[in-house]
């Protein structure tokens, strides 16, 4: 009997090349789109995706709506993963994951997600949330042996 493989339409928003590479390697059996920053992600995000997996911290990636004050911050890594996740929930993308590789000792925003993400990697449904019809998970990333994000592990938890 041949096992039926579920082919998903996945959007990954990630600014770090090594984590983009692991998404490409791990999601060969799915239809994968990669956005490299917030603006690309926002532009590509549409209801037809089954899954959004987004980094937490990333640059804005463009000048849209920015005046002179806002321009000063366009290269800063900011927690754009949250607005992207809520935007995905607004358009009812079924599975959404925010996945950070930042150790909680190294950045306040990483420490701030400890209580809502279960600190380090845990395969637990306790840290999954329902928004509209979407299932949202917030994760400190699991890693493969090369230190890349293990996106597949995240996807498995979301799909359970």
């Amino acid at each position, binding site marked *: 009997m041949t096992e039926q493989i579920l082919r998903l339409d996945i959007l990954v928003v990630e600014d770090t090349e090594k984590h983009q590479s692991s998404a490409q390697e791990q999601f060969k059996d799915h239809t994968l789109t990669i956005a490299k920053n917030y603006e690309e992600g926002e532009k590509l995000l549409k209801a037809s995706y089954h899954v959004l997996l987004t980094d937490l911290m990333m640059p804005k990636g*463009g*000048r849209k709506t*920015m*005046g*002179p*004050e*806002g*321009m*000063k*911050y*366009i*290269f*800063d890594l900011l927690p754009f993963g949250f607005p992207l996740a809520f935007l995905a929930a607004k358009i009812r993308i079924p599975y959404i994951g925010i996945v950070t590789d930042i150790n909680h000792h190294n950045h306040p925003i990483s420490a701030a997600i400890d209580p809502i993400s279960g600190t380090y990697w845990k395969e637990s449904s306790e840290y999954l949330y329902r928004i509209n019809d979407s299932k949202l998970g917030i994760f400190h990333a699991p890693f493969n042996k090369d230190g890349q994000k293990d996106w597949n592990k995240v996807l498995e938890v979301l799909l359970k």
Partner: protein
Amino acid sequence: MKIGIISNNYEGPVAKALEQVYKALTGGEIERISMAEFQPQYVSQKSLDALLIEGRNNSDEGFAIAVRRNTPDTTKICYFRIYHTSSSQELQEHNIHVLNILDGDLREKFTNWMGGS
């Protein structure tokens, strides 16, 4: 010294003048970078020692400050403006050198900047 010239309009007279002035004064290598495409990591990827930013409006000043905040302190940054649209105080506070194209002693000022620390 390798310099990156960041401009919104390479066909415009300012960017062309900047290239000519730089080549005449130093003979150094130039990398043209569009303002829309620029990323802070280009500085290390392209081994740039200095950045010359063509400033046309207040938003470009914000852009220059964003570049300063996200590139190494050792990277020299010059904001090259056509008009006195605002005070250059904030740019200077961020260690961004300001040159005005209408300054009479532009050549000297440019040379001083290139030679200074």
